[in-house]
């Protein structure tokens, strides 16, 4: 691999990694407030991609094909749809189990995930065939010296960075973000401060699901096509990323996502290693869990009673 290839792979890896980071944020935020892994998160990603799939032709009819405006509109509408779906999942499936053991909720999450995946495969819903994803944004080839970049290679990380910055701002600087952090530390104490816990949990699911929808679209732009099980692979990697970075820790999710994305891309570019991408991702997970069980940026929590 020469220098130029390394740069090219690095760009691809960061692009893929930033998508993982967006998905991982959803896992880690929900874990932060409710202490369980929302396995249906990867299916919300798929629903985001399908929302865009159905919305794109409608929007393009309105604002013309391959326009930036139209692209943004598709992103925003899909994110809004998935935010509602995420909140609905929480309300119907998880909220009634709020006082039950976490294992009950975890198994329910797996149930919700399978329900969405197999309902999606039904011929009357999406069907199980892989479908070509429509062009949502205008595409250009950009030459930078010897490097050849697709405009999507720039758009994907840019969108991600903007969203990550927005997330950081929401969580650290706004009232609702403060409430999210309070709820994640101690729900009862938060409610005694006047924080409406249910509304905050709902908001967290909405926010995470909106990010998943956008990640789903960004992922689909480069994927060969979309189908109801498409969320499983990126979902799994993003979950690993969230754990590697330290579950419950937002910067950790981003770091983990980028790490997994870059490693996976480089492994894919080395002949003989490309079939071991998952093995490498899980290898990283095992190493991290062995040597730093709380994750790269996770802090071991000590509770004083």
């Amino acid at each position, binding site marked *: 691999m020469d220098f130029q290839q390394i740069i090219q792979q690095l760009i691809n890896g960061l692009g893929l990694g930033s998508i993982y980071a967006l998905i991982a944020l959803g896992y880690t935020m929900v874990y932060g407030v409710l202490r369980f892994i929302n396995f249906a998160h990867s299916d919300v990603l798929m629903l985001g991609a399908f929302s865009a799939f159905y919305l794109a032709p409608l929007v393009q009819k309105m604002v013309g094909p391959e326009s930036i405006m139209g692209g943004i509109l598709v992103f925003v509408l899909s994110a809004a749809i998935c935010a509602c779906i995420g909140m609905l999942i929480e309300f119907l499936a998880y909220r009634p189990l709020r006082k039950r053991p976490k294992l009950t909720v975890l198994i329910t999450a797996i149930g919700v995930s399978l329900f969405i995946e197999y309902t999606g495969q039904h011929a009357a819903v999406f069907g199980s065939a892989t479908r070509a994803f429509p062009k949502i944004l205008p595409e250009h080839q950009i030459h930078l010296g010897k490097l050849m970049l697709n405009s999507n290679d720039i758009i994907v990380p840019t969108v991600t960075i903007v969203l990550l910055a927005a997330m950081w701002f929401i969580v650290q600087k706004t009232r609702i973000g*403060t*409430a999210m952090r*309070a709820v994640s530390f101690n729900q*009862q*104490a938060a*409610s*005694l401060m*006047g924080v409406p*816990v249910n509304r905050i949990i709902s908001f967290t699911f909405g926010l995470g699901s909106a990010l998943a929808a956008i990640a789903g679209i960004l992922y689909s732009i480069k994927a060969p096509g979309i189908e109801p099980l498409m969320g499983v692979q990126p979902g799994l990697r993003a979950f690993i990323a969230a754990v590697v970075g330290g579950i419950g820790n937002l910067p950790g999710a981003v770091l983990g996502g980028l790490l997994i994305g870059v490693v996976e891309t480089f492994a894919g570019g080395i002949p003989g290693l490309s079939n071991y991408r998952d093995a490498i991702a899980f290898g990283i997970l095992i190493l991290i869990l062995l040597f730093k069980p709380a994750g790269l940026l996770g802090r071991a929590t000590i509770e004083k009673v």
Partner: protein
Amino acid sequence: MLEVENLHVSYGSIRALHGVSLKVPAGSIVTLIGANGAGKSTTLRALSGLIKPASGSIRYDGQEIKGLPAHAIVSKGLCHVPEGRMVFANLTVRENLAMGAYLQRDKTWVAKQTDYVFQLFPRLLEREKQAAGTLSGGEQQMLAIGRALLSRPRLLMLDEPSLGIAPLLVKTIFERIVEINREQGLTILLVEQNANLALAVSTHGYVLETGSILLEGACADLKANPRVQEAYLGA
């Protein structure tokens, strides 16, 4: 100010409270004493909306608040400092206080009240930037009370403020509780296992035993009551 009538609470099939009635007049310090497991904390948790009572009535300022969610009850000025303090361990002292002011939109009031809390507990000012988890038990209790004061309470419910705290700090904390009551005119409902301490600072007391009120009266009378002396004052 607060009138509780015939309050019943169950945890599943276990009946924790059966028919608790009590009154907290404005401006007073009322205490609820009783042994471990008598239902003291359960009573406070029902009043602040952390658990839903099965039946009975809770009137606060003449308004029925039974069944309201905890955050709605706080917004009315009925604040609860829970047992075990529940400070946000990863947040600093100052951030914990800011969290207490979550519902307060008036920034000048919050700044003034924060200063008041620091003046009440200078120890908190010294540890302003420290994570709350690194504080001692007594300091955490001060923080929990300070945090509740920032929720703009008119009635403050304190659950076992002496629990697991060094005796010297217990004395300071109780002095401050009286001070808050006198200077800010804050009504206080105090739950304590340490009956000696509680009866010394309060005006009126209730004795809770296995989920119902056994005795009530002026604190002086309760202290003189042989049953109370034997069971709770170690006389």
